[in-house]
């Protein structure tokens, strides 16, 4: 009986997760709220089923340790509470984003439990604290009006945090990434990412003069240089691309970003020749098997794991993901692919894509240019982080040692990402408020709005229609909105 569960679970997990992924996209296309919420309830059911199934396997493989059952129940309660709190306290929040957030955390819990049980317990603990800590964030974001005023405060705090790490930080895997306060290791670049996005948004939302662009670019460059000096190449790369994307969107001029890209390319080539740690990563990327004993070891082990796992995976506990160094952090995607299968891994990428669409979708729907840029910046940071991590472990691009948001082991990363999700939720609530206030303000032909709203209430179509020629009637444009001023 038990062995059948273990064997069957491998295939069942793939099917359930594929359904979960499909429901995510299907919900985006749904036009009515009720239709959407039905699909999302079904999706939550899939999530809980996947979680239960995986922990059943872990329970069996851990020689039926009762501790596993308790651990499972704690997590179950955690998920149910998160769902319920968002449902009651933030009815205007995107439940779809909540589902994805919990799914990613569940996958992380499962995989870390399999790789290093003690770390999984720590991770769940951090998750609980972080979710509680970030619970008020949506409220703050949705109500506050002043966040755009602290441009130089953001710049200062962010830079200070990074410099502290660069100076005091201890070496972890060749990069100065973290420092400890009272025994708790703290990796500030994860939080600085958020502050950085707020800084750029605050600088550029209303003022895109050359002077403003130059000042902002100089500060951004400083951040990136400090990160490079700390050898945190992955974060430097993400900051760099986030800035270029935000600059492009804020100025509506791709020329600035192209110039930035050119400068970045020259800098990358220079870095290749100047720093050995950059060179070794490129060598390990081009042919990890030529240096399989040294620089190429990690990537080679990752490719072995993904390749050996194949489409269906070896099944939990049946592979050798622990052969990969730092597997719970930077290389967790390879472990997932090895044991849960290539199909599962592809579904995971699709889920990250879904998440990214939700991030940028809210940016498009908002009227307020500051928050539009914040959502865009956070979305871009998330998207690049996923791309850089998965691209790195599959040898699509050189590996830079970045975590997979919400899934990888690591407190700072988990807390920072949960805050990002909470901010986005705050923006979803803000959007609804914006719409309501607009309705109130204008007594005119309300039917226009209603008609437009009901015509096509699908996240997916909002994005696709903007490119295509299909009718888009949802958005009413206020002539007095800020971005008309420029």
């Amino acid at each position, binding site marked *: 009986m038990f062995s059948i569960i273990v064997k069957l679970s491998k295939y069942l997990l793939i099917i359930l997760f594929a359904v979960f992924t499909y429901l995510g996209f299907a919900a985006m296309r749904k036009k009515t709220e009720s239709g959407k919420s039905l699909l999302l309830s079904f999706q939550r059911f899939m999530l809980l089923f996947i979680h239960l199934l995986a922990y059943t396997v872990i329970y069996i493989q851990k020689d039926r340790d009762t501790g596993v059952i308790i651990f499972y129940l704690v997590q179950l309660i955690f998920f149910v509470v998160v769902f319920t709190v968002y449902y009651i306290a933030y009815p205007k929040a995107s439940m779809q984003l909540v589902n994805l957030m919990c799914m990613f955390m569940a996958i992380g819990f499962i995989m870390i439990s399999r790789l290093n049980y003690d770390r999984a317990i720590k991770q769940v603990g951090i998750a609980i604290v972080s979710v509680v800590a970030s619970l008020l964030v949506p409220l703050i974001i949705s109500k506050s009006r002043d966040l755009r005023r602290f441009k130089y405060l953001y710049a200062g705090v962010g830079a200070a945090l990074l410099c502290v790490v660069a100076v005091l930080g201890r070496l972890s895997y060749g990069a100065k990434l973290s420092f400890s306060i009272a025994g708790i290791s703290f990796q500030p670049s994860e939080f600085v990412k958020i502050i950085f996005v707020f800084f750029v948004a605050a600088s550029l939302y209303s003022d895109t003069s050359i002077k403003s662009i130059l000042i902002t670019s100089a500060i951004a460059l400083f951040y990136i240089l400090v990160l490079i000096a700390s050898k945190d190449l992955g974060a430097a790369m993400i900051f760099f691309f986030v800035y270029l994307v935000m600059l492009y969107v804020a100025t509506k001029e791709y020329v600035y970003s192209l110039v930035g890209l050119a400068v970045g390319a020259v800098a990358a080539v220079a870095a290749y020749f100047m720093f050995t740690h950059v060179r070794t990563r490129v060598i390990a990327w081009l042919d990890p098997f030529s240096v399989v004993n040294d620089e190429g070891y990690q990537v080679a082990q990752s490719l*072995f794991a993904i390749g050996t796992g194949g489409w269906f995976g070896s099944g939990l506990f049946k592979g050798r993901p622990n052969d990969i160094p730092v597997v719970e952090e930077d290389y967790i995607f390879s472990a997932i692919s090895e044991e849960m299968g290539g199909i599962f891994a592809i579904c995971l990428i699709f889920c990250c894509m879904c998440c990214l669409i939700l991030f940028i979708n809210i940016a498009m729907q908002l009227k307020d240019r500051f928050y539009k840029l914040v959502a865009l910046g956070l979305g871009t940071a998330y998207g690049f982080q996923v791309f850089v991590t998965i691209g790195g472990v599959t040898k699509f691009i050189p590996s830079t040692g970045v975590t997979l948001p919400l899934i990888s082991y690591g407190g700072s990363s988990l807390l920072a990402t949960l805050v990002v999700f909470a901010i986005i939720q705050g923006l979803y609530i803000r959007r609804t408020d914006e719409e309501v206030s607009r309705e109130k303000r204008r007594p005119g032909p309300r039917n226009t709005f209603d008609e437009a709203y009901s015509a096509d209430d699908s996240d997916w179509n909002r994005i696709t229609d903007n490119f295509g020629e299909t009718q888009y009637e949802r958005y009413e444009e206020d002539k007095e909105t800020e971005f008309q001023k420029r």
Partner: protein
Amino acid sequence: MKDTKKIKKQNFRSANREYTVVVYAFLVLFLLLIGYFIYYNVFQSDKVINNSFNKRQDTLAAEIVKGDILDRNGKVLATTKTAKDGTEYRNYPYGQVFAHVVGYTDKGKTGLESAENFTLLRSHSSIITQITNDINNVKSNGDNVVTTLDYTLQSVAYNALGGYNGAVIVMEPKTGKILAMVSKPAFDPNNIAANWDAYTNEQSSKGILVNRATRGLYPPGSTFKILTLLEYIRENKDYENFSYTCKGYETADDFKLRCYDGTAHGKEDLTAAFANSCNSAFSKIGLSLDINKLRSTCERALFNKSLPTDIACGSSSFVLEPSATKPEIMMTAIGQGETVVTPMHMAMIGAAIANDGVLMAPYLVDHTVNDAGITVSATGPRKAATLFDKEDCDVLKKYMRAVVTQGTVYQFKGAKYEVAGKTGTAEYSSDKTKSHSWFVGFANVEDPEILVTAIVEDADGVAPAVARQIMDAYYAKK
């Protein structure tokens, strides 16, 4: 109404065009990532994971019965059997005959057992069968590897070497398929663990575990004259007017280089000098050559290079510098001196000449099949490199044919096929009586179907006779 809608739409677009560009850019990026992931899993992973640094073999062996290695006609060369106590072991029905090329599995893995280990431990049974086996806790059958090896030719080659040590490679010049690969002395792969101490004894083992066909580094002896001849032809348009009178030796700087057995060949043209394998004439030719050009000719023929094949090989070396002394140049021109070559490399040179200069990458695995016999993947012929120009090969073939019709090789008299080739006598120590016998040749000259390379250690002129037996067997079957 329509106008306001249009304006709204335009306003929305101008507000969000950049956002849409960003979303689409990300979608493209993610789809590329997924595309690459699929590409890796479909096309690259099989090759990547078959690496000794991947320690997952043991994990796979717990789920899968290692597949069989078969000859081109389906004869089993290696298989998995289960002992009475339930443990699995590898069985090699032909023992020593295929020892090196198939390899062993106890005490580490070698040969095809190593190179194809992962393939043999992967199951491509139908998905239903695999899932059913998985759930019922039954091991699935690993894939079988069908090699290009031919049992008959391998046995003939093995027996033809008799009690001599040495190596034989038989291949198809047009495809690169290896039909036989023998190395002697040979070990018994079935009892490798029991005999391990004897096999690894440095004094008495004679390197029994080394595959001489791929790893053995021998002086090329007179077979190297093929390259000396080629360089001479390239440098001298009037090579057909070459004339030399052999006194049985040639001197330079107080150094005296003798012809084989001290024979004085008398007046020779280039054909006769090559057919007689005249050391005196070729040492004289060597002195006339541009050493840099000779070196680049050799390097184009893959000296000092890793050989373009998936089969693990040693690499040959040619180290002559233009500053070398005359005796060094003379020795090198006749294949003595510092030059060393593996039998596999010599086979490649012969095969390239037979195939108008184009080397087809030698390969051992023809295709792999699942346990139901359905092909999983196939290796096709692959052009590896162009070692010579076609015009060079036309000339070389004529000269190599003369070796058989009027020169040192008499062993093919009465054969029903036409052979072109070159012998070699490689001295490997200062004791001039000790030498290895080389032969590289192919048949038929006009339409080369088979190439044989043989090196017989401590033997005088035995290699061509070994080749004759193999070619007879090949054409008897046709």
